């Protein structure tokens, strides 16, 4: 009996609420006072809603900042790559001006006349000398990559020290990260890059070229690519093995 009474009461109250809701729905669109109530209610709620508004603004700012940062990072990376390419081009033009005797910057070739087995990875002799305007310190290339520099010059021939020689030490730069180090050979066919601060994001395949701080060689002469990390010392500096761009086992001529 009680249940039936309760059920009836529920229906009465429920239907009353529904009719009232429908009535409000029907008349509210034509009543101007509803607008005022909506405005007033919105104003009252603006107080408890204020933290949400602030948090939303912070979130939107953070999202915009992240998007801008990613976009800028992409742009910086692209500009770095462009810059590295331009440096190489500039270096090629500069070295052409400095070392070329004529106004054409075309490189000249020389034949390798001696590569002694005892100093296989240290030096070569070429068939060009003073009469061909060869000077000490002149860079020597194979396939467009630096393989050494002229160490001694005689009238008809010259000796060039190879980059695999332990006494060949030149400042070089990793083009992608602009980290500076020293390129040096080990006398056994391996080329190393030393004194790179560890943990600077140096990756395999990054390009290595001569650095501007070297006095003897112009900057931007391509040497090769980073092949692998050899060691990371306790002094905070890492040594990398360089894969030379030129095949140092199979050259019979060089350019300069």
């Amino acid at each position: 009996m009680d249940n039936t009474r309760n059920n009836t009461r529920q229906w009465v109250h429920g239907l009353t609420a529904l009719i009232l809701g429908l009535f409000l729905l029907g008349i509210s669109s034509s009543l101007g006072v509803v607008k005022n109530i909506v405005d007033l209610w919105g104003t009252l709620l603006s107080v408890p809603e204020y933290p949400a508004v602030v948090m939303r603004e912070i979130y939107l700012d953070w999202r915009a900042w992240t998007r801008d940062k990613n976009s800028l990072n992409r742009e910086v990376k692209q500009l770095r790559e462009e810059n590295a390419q331009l440096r190489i081009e500039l270096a090629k033009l500069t070295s052409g001006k400095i070392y070329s005797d004529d106004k054409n910057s075309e490189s000249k070739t020389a034949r390798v006349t001696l590569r002694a087995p005892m100093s296989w990875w240290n030096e070569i002799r070429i068939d060009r000398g003073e009469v061909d305007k060869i000077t000490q310190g002149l860079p020597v290339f194979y396939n467009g990559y630096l393989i050494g520099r002229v160490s001694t010059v005689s009238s008809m021939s010259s000796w060039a020290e190879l980059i695999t020689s332990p006494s060949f030490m030149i400042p070089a730069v990793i083009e992608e990260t602009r980290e500076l180090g020293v390129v040096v050979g080990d006398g056994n066919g391996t080329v190393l890059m030393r004194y790179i601060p560890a943990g600077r994001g140096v990756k395999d395949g990054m390009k290595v070229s001569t650095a501007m701080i070297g006095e003897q060689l112009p900057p931007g002469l391509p040497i090769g690519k980073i092949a692998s990390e050899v060691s990371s010392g306790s002094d905070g500096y890492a040594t990398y093995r360089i894969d030379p761009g030129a095949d140092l086992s199979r050259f019979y001529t060089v350019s300069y």
Partner: protein
Amino acid sequence: MLLVILWLIQDFLTVFGGGGMQVPGLFMLGIVYKLLFDDGSDDSLWAIWAAFAGGILWDLRWVGIPGFFTLAHVIVVLIVLQVWGMIPPQARDSGNTIIVFMLMELSQLLPPMLPVLILGGNIGWTFFLIQQAYSLPAILFTMYIYLKRVKDSKKV
């Protein structure tokens, strides 16, 4: 008091979502949750008028025309009262997980759908999926609290 807090949290989340997000209906979940532990006495009438008041305030804040959520809230409460009233009180504590879930789901699905049904608009799968993505975690959480409370009451 709990319902007032839930209403304000729901409003807070809607503001944070920029008004375009299908925020879970925490207020209605709270009402349904309380009704599930109601013994079917006269006291359950509070739910009808609480839903009415919460709906009208929501309409005034987010719809601009009072009536849409007001009606939906009252309909949900009436359905919950009738369905839950049909189950004997002794049988309510066991084996009704699906019915409880359906009642909570109804409280989340009907209110946002009613304005679209009345005014017209596209109720596609996208609407349903987005609405579910936001409300389902809230429903599952309420279910967890409900089942835990039922389990605890059995122990006592």
